[in-house]
């Protein structure tokens, strides 16, 4: 880069050749970085299809000689109850928190009240706090009010602490809708719910996809809330169960890797199918629209 800047003006063909070379170099770098980033996936896949004998150091990086699904079968037996728990957690929590986010985002941007920005800022802080700072009283409170333990408690926690991010996603999206649309609805004497239902909701699909994916991924992957709130192992979501099985050093590598892949499969499938929207959710998390 700097050599180009300092070099004296070059004849056109030389410059062209040089540019072609930098473009080639660019692709080489991009490919190398892609390979490095995908390396853990290679290890996961390859090791998960090995028999237990081949998981020793001598075969560390090689492809399996004998492809085996034993580890996958074993991982499934161990984790399927927890996968089920995770689905029972993530489906209602994602749907409810996204709907709540749509309503909040709508009121905070299109049916505004005095102090709406202040309320929004007051919400946003809740997105950044370390949840450790509420965890002790939260578990105590849920016990004291006899809130149903296990998954229901976890659903509740994810809905409450998901309020800021979902409100942010929808508020950012609704900010792009012209206010005239609301005014027109008001002229027609449509009330708030009517306006939301028949004017705003039909065009909210993109924001819904972003919020649903974002909440699905973060709730599925959550470990912190689950490990503090769910004490009964039969109610553990898959992240806690995964950490528990693989944390012990006696678990063979092929089982560890198959279990890790199994536990990540739902979010990976969502990412592969809807990755574009995933990126938009990320950008919302950076407070930018």
């Amino acid at each position, binding site marked *: 880069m700097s050599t*180009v*800047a300092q070099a004296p003006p070059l004849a056109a063909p030389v410059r062209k050749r040089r540019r072609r070379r930098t473009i080639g170099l*660019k692709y080489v*770098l*991009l490919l190398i*970085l892609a390979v490095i*980033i*995908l390396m*853990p996936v290679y*290890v*996961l896949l390859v*090791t998960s299809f090995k028999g237990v004998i081949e998981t020793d*150091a001598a075969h*560390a*990086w090689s492809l399996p000689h004998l492809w085996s699904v034993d580890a996958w079968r074993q991982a499934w037996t161990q984790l399927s109850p927890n996968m089920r728990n995770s689905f029972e957690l993530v489906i209602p929590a994602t749907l409810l928190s996204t709907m709540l986010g749509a309503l*909040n985002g*709508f009121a*905070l941007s299109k*049916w505004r*009240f005095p102090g709406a*920005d202040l*309320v929004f*800022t*007051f*919400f*946003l802080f809740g997105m*950044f*706090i*370390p949840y*450790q*700072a509420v*965890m*002790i*009283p*939260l578990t*105590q*409170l849920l016990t004291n009010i006899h809130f149903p333990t296990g998954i229901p408690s976890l659903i509740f926690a994810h809905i*409450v*602490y998901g*309020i800021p991010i979902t409100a942010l996603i929808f508020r950012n999206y609704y900010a792009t809708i012209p206010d005239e649309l609301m005014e027109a609805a008001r002229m027609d004497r449509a009330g708030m719910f009517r306006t939301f239902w028949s004017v705003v909701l039909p065009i909210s699909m993109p924001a819904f996809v972003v919020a649903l994916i974002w909440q699905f991924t973060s709730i599925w*992957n*959550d*470990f912190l809330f689950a490990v*503090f709130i769910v004490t009964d192992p039969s109610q553990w979501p898959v*992240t806690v169960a*995964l*950490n528990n099985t693989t*944390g012990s050093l006696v678990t063979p*590598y092929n089982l*560890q890797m198959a279990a*890790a892949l199994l*536990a*990540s499969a739902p*979010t990976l499938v969502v990412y592969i199918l809807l*990755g574009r929207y*995933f990126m938009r959710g*990320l*950008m919302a998390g*950076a407070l*930018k629209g």
Partner: protein
Amino acid sequence: MKRIRRWGPGLLLVSPSIVLIAVFVYGLIGWNIKVSLSDWRQAQPSSGYAGLRAYRDLFHDAVWSLDLRHILIFTVVFIVGTLFVGWTLAFLLDKGVKGEGFFRAIYLFPMAVSFIASGIVWRWLMNPAPGDRETGLNAVFDHAGLHFLVNQWYLGQNWGMAAMAMPAVWALSGYIMALFLAGFRGVPEELREAARMDGASEYRVYRHVVFPHLRPVTLSALIILGHISIKVFDLIVAVGGKQLITQVPAVYMWIQIYDAQDYAKGAAIATLLLIGISVLIIPYLIFTVRSERNA
């Protein structure tokens, strides 16, 4: 009256969330501070007042100082590494390459995987076992003749936390790439073109036109990475477990609750984490909301 009828429903719609956030964020933060000032140091809750005792204990606690050292090393390596890799990826993609969507999808995919899952592979990749039990990256280095690179990774005596930051760099670089890419693309093409017309080389276009535009994005990236780093928990648990050699404040808090059942001390650690994050986040929030209002 008419005014209230206009905005009242909006406020009513948000009010359940206002109550939930007020109680479960701000109320519980207050309650947590109260626990940190109490004498609740056993399984049974207790609300006797013990003042700043838990904080004083931490101040004299060798483990806590070690945690601070760990989180500091982790944060520096994580932030510098992620900014560097993320920036480089964005820079390489900026002018448009064939298959950009494909590359972006690869670089971003680690964000979709939990640290609990990816930590399992990283524990394997950074396995420090020597000799014929050697696996992971050490085995690669040995086969490539790079013996000097073979190391103890996250179990290294002094700088293990630098290795611990690697999986975090791996996970977050794609995110930072996305932020910087949006930053690069946010520079109006006319500005670049105008500089080129003035005879600026491509290097100078970047140096004097594009990079200055990236300052706000860099600030956002720094703050986002900083607050992730202070809170880091899952990754440490997945790779290092409860070992002292990789312990950070968030893990120490967990140990205080589950193993030591010293709730006052756990709450004090949580409060200190919150203070650390607030110092970063509150000015950022005020700045963002204010600049939005001015826009």
